[in-house]
């Protein structure tokens, strides 16, 4: 009975199979495209050092670009993974909260009513902390609604989805606040030769992974997500745990918002974080996590986030405009989730079994 699993069976059971396969496919498309067009087929993977006037010698290449641009989605995906796991729901406010955090950060740094500045009105750290704090506050608000008032996550976060961006606009006095200051711009540019967002993402992922492995939080979150009542009887405080995941999600949204604001050295309330909640949720789903909560796989979500960015970057490279890209994204998403759908899996299992039966008889 206890037969050794074949390599193929092991591979099938690997939780990261889907996101990794998706990522490999995207790379393959790049290689083929480059080869067909007579470019170096591996230009996708080429990383070079380039001299720029603004930032000195920096790393350059499509992979670096994907890692850089995918940072916000990856950071959001961390928080989203935890939220999905603990509460079987999604936080759709993260994009809006990003925008609010960027607004608060920029206004703190520029001063209320100022539309453009090169000088910081307050120390950089104050602005950054203000942005992160407002993110946490938003997360706490969502967490309170979900954990204590027992409101469905989507409805609860719909409130800030609608309001946060607008509040940001109010804070900015209906202006786009520009903070053209290299100190502030740092979070969106380079640290040495490496883009800062990549470093920040790496730190966020590392800290989260460390906390999850060195504490029992991971088990707690999954346990609460699977059966909150039973977890309570077993001594877990499910409310606190759910609340905490939302707060973390808000925290990460704050960080992502500041990075995004720093990239464009402004608080553009109407555009920062637009549709980012969808990318984050997609990353979680792509990572092989069930949106029904419970078991989670952080690495999957992160790979998922970068896969989405890789798809976007590839589409741009293929000459698809940014407005049209969603069509392809939609088709890809549907294919990915459809092959994972239980009825489809059951169908293939049945067909394989039938084939095996035929083979046996023959």
């Amino acid at each position: 009975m206890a037969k050794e699993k074949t390599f193929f069976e092991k591979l099938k059971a690997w939780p990261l199979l889907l996101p990794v396969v998706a990522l490999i496919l995207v790379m393959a498309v790049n290689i083929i495209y480059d080869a067909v067009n007579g470019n170096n087929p591996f230009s996708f993977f080429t990383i070079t050092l380039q001299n720029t006037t603004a930032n000195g010698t920096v790393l350059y290449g499509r992979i670096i670009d994907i890692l850089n641009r995918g940072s916000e989605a990856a950071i959001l995906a961390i928080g989203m993974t935890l939220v999905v796991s603990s509460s079987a729901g999604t936080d759709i406010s993260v994009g809006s909260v990003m925008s609010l955090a960027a607004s608060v950060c920029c206004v703190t740094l520029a001063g209320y009513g100022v539309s453009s500045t090169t000088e910081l009105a307050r120390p950089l750290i104050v602005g950054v902390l203000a942005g992160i704090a407002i993110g946490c506050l938003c997360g706490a608000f969502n967490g309170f609604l979900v954990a204590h008032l027992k409101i469905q996550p989507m409805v609860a976060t719909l409130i800030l989805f609608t309001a946060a961006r607008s509040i940001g606009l109010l804070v900015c006095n209906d202006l786009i606040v520009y903070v053209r200051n290299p100190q502030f711009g740092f979070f969106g540019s380079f640290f040495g030769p490496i883009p800062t967002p990549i470093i920040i993402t790496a730190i966020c992922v590392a800290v989260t992974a460390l906390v999850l492995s060195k504490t029992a939080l991971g088990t707690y979150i999954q346990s609460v997500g699977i059966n909150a009542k039973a977890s309570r009887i077993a001594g877990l405080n499910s409310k606190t745990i759910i609340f905490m995941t939302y707060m973390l999600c808000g925290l990460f949204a704050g960080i992502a918002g500041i990075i995004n604001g720093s990239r464009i050295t402004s608080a553009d309330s109407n555009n920062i974080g637009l549709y980012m909640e969808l990318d984050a949720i997609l990353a979680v789903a792509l990572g092989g996590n069930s949106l029904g909560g419970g078991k989670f796989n952080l690495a999957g979500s992160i790979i998922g986030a970068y896969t989405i960015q890789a798809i976007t970057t590839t589409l741009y490279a293929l000459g698809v405009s940014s407005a049209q890209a969603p069509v392809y994204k939609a088709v890809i998403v549907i294919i990915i989730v459809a092959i994972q759908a239980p009825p489809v899996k059951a169908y293939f299992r049945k067909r394989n079994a039938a084939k095996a039966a035929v083979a046996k008889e023959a």
Partner: protein
Amino acid sequence: MKKTKINGNTLLLLITIALFVVMYIGGIAAYGSRGFSRLQTFLDILKTNAGLICMASGLTVVMLTAGIDISVGALVAMDCMILACGMEAGIGAVPMMIIVILIGLVFGAVQGFLVGYLEIQPFIVTMAGMFFARGMTAVISTDQKSITEQINPLFYKLANIKIKLPFGGYTNRKGVYMAPNISVGVVIALLVLILIFLMLRYTKFGRSLYAIGGSEQSAAMMGLNVKFTKMKAYILSSFLTSIGAICFCLNTMAASVQQALGYEMDAISSAVIGGTLLTGGVGNVIGTFFGVLINGTISAIVKTNGKLASSWPSILTAALLFLFIVIQSIFAAIREKQKG
């Protein structure tokens, strides 16, 4: 008549209606001098939101099955773009409207199949639908289109039909009697509303939607065809959205990639304020109608004031959402306590 006990859901609907009345009276008290008290102001709210009423009705149907459809806003943009481009290319208004409705049916059928038969989460499916429709709009054209009399006289005429009402008019400063009027879109929207209300209450399909929302497993055990019913709900949603898109287009006479951005959330918040639960099984289009009216009234008040920042309507909507959600959760807690 048998005495019926008022349950929590009915009470919630009454609160929604009361809130609308209070808010509207507040608007009249504050801006009566600027014409807020006229019947026409109310009718204009209906006119502006005719499309939203259709969309939100469809969404309510989907939400009853514990699903969600966030593709509606993008579908409106795509439909409007198809209408505008088609008419620009010289195709008549009627064929174009039929085409748009057919597209809605197909769009809904695909989404419904994915949700009903492949059991993929509705949020993901309709999110993909939203990406697809929004992107497709850009594929068709990234221009700002507007439909003028030259492009299609029939559509233009349809948009400008004013159906005069025999009451509630006023005499303006020049002494001319202004009869209140409604547009074709409003008539369509109200018809949709009534039909969906009747469908939910008096047809097998309508009751099956509630049953599935109440307990999908039970509905299946009781021999209902859950998969097909769900699929039909999504078809209906996209169908009504396409009708809504026509109403919307009649009102704006324009099309662009950015059109109806965020309308899905307006529709969802209208339904939630109207007492529809996202967990399914509870809700009604009448509530949704008042939800739309509340949202519309907020916008109208902010517009009439003229000085408030443009971000206020969404903040106020969010505040209302918060209020309603808290009331709902208190009701739920009370019910739980009574039972336990």
